[in-house]
């Protein structure tokens, strides 16, 4: 599902964010990406979502070699990936419903279908009663759950999350992680960057450890 072979990323500034990283996730796998701040976690997720391009090495997602994907193909690639950010990236002038509906609007669903799917997604994250609220009126944990609902509403086969619990207290963090476990059980391939080792070590999922842009765990686990 997600394959990296000897991937390196050097930013234009000269910073080598990733050096020779390989990993392989099969459909339905779930893994955590850990490492100190600046280890290259975000960079790795950005490469998979084609927010950045690798300097060296090969990345394949869903059997598609990303090097062959032109600019025009990028949006369609991203529709197969639900991305969750630490700072939510919600649109503040639109309701919770409209935020969650955005991927469906983009993909060209009809209004009735959109209503059905948005409510189903909001129901899964427990925010059905907030559909008319504006994001600013929600707590940080609720905003994060709206972000998750938006990421899953299109039922993408892949979920990427970059420090989704970074701003949350332990209880809320556990709640959010449980949501990801549920979506993984429903069949999604899930990769989560997090340095909350205490929490993720209890979840029984493989960890991909990065240090200064290199993998430091045994490469064969995930």
């Amino acid at each position, binding site marked *: 599902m997600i394959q990296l072979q000897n991937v390196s990323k050097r930013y234009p500034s000269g910073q080598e964010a990733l050096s020779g990283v390989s990993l392989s996730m099969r459909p339905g796998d779930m893994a955590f990406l850990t490492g100190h701040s600046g280890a290259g976690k975000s960079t790795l997720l950005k490469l998979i979502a084609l*927010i950045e391009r690798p300097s060296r090495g090969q990345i394949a997602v869903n059997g598609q070699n990303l090097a062959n994907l032109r600019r025009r193909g990028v949006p369609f690639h991203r529709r*197969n990936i639900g991305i969750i950010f630490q700072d939510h990236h*919600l649109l503040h002038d639109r309701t919770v419903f409209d935020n969650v509906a955005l991927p469906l609007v983009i*993909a060209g669903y*009809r209004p009735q279908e959109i209503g059905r799917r948005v409510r189903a997604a909001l129901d899964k994250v427990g925010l059905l009663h907030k559909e008319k609220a504006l994001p600013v009126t929600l707590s940080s944990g609720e905003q994060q759950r709206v972000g998750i609902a938006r990421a899953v509403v299109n039922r993408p086969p892949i979920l990427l999350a970059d420090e989704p619990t970074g701003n949350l207290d332990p209880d809320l963090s556990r709640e959010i992680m449980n949501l990801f476990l549920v979506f993984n059980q429903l069949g999604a391939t899930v990769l989560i960057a997090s340095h909350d080792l205490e929490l993720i070590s209890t979840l029984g999922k493989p960890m991909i450890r990065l240090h200064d842009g290199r993998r430091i765990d045994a490469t064969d686990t995930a």
Partner: protein
Amino acid sequence: MKQARRNRTKPSVRSRFGAWGDNHARALLFSLGKLYRSPVATLLTVTVIAIALALPTGLLLLLANLERLGGGLESSTTISAFTTQQVQDSAAARLAREITDWPEVGAVEFRSREQALAEFRERSGLGAALDALDENPLPAVLLVTPTAATAEPDALAGLVERLQALPEVEFAQLDTLWVQRLFAIMNVGRRGVEVIALLLGLAVLLVVGNTIRLDIQNRREEIVVTKLIGATDAFIRRPFLYGGLWYGLLGGGLAVLIVSVSLLALQGPVSHLAGLYDSSFRLSGPGPLDVLGLLVAGTLLGLGGSWIAVGRHLREIEPS
């Protein structure tokens, strides 16, 4: 990846096709809503566009009115044919009846030597000087009005020549030179207005382009987010293009209003002026074609301006 995409439940072809229309309708309404929510900024932009469109339109309409007026003058042109001194009034009157039968002549008014003298006496106030002469120095005059079909320069010149060729006629004179000068001046005016229209059209393009550019900058965050969740360039472009379209269309509509009201304001003084010349001339306002033209021009300029802005500024906004 293609395969996996097909495996998941996706909108059917038909629902996609309908959704394409939905998407456009949605973007159209959405962009209108955006304008509605910032009424002051919108009104400012729309007014600037409207003035830029109204100015050349108003001038062109005035020119058209002047041309109409000039055309009326030209067709009411008469040719004055002065008889030689030897021709008596009775002979001149006979000649007048003869000329009336010419195909290019509409009517002939005969003014005898006595009438000419009386008129001159009255108008010039030189009665005493005329009394000093023992003979009437004025010839009889035939005022020849050409038919409407003859009321264009070449035919008129032909008619003047034919009158001139008559032995009884000393001198025939067509007084249209000033009308021709008027038309020449109006041609200069028209060219000038065309240049102004071109420049102001360019101004509308730039105004809309700049407004949309600012709009794009203000919604940078939103553009990044929608790109991240898989929006195509076309999807992101659409509301901005429709925004420009609305600016242009609303500007065109306001321009229609401005032009109509301005002409209405001129109507009173113009009627008064025309009255002084015994004319019932009235300014004609923008017709349906002018209105349509303004709306279409506004819409196209708005769309063009936003197209330029979108082409230049949307691509460079990418998630990082």
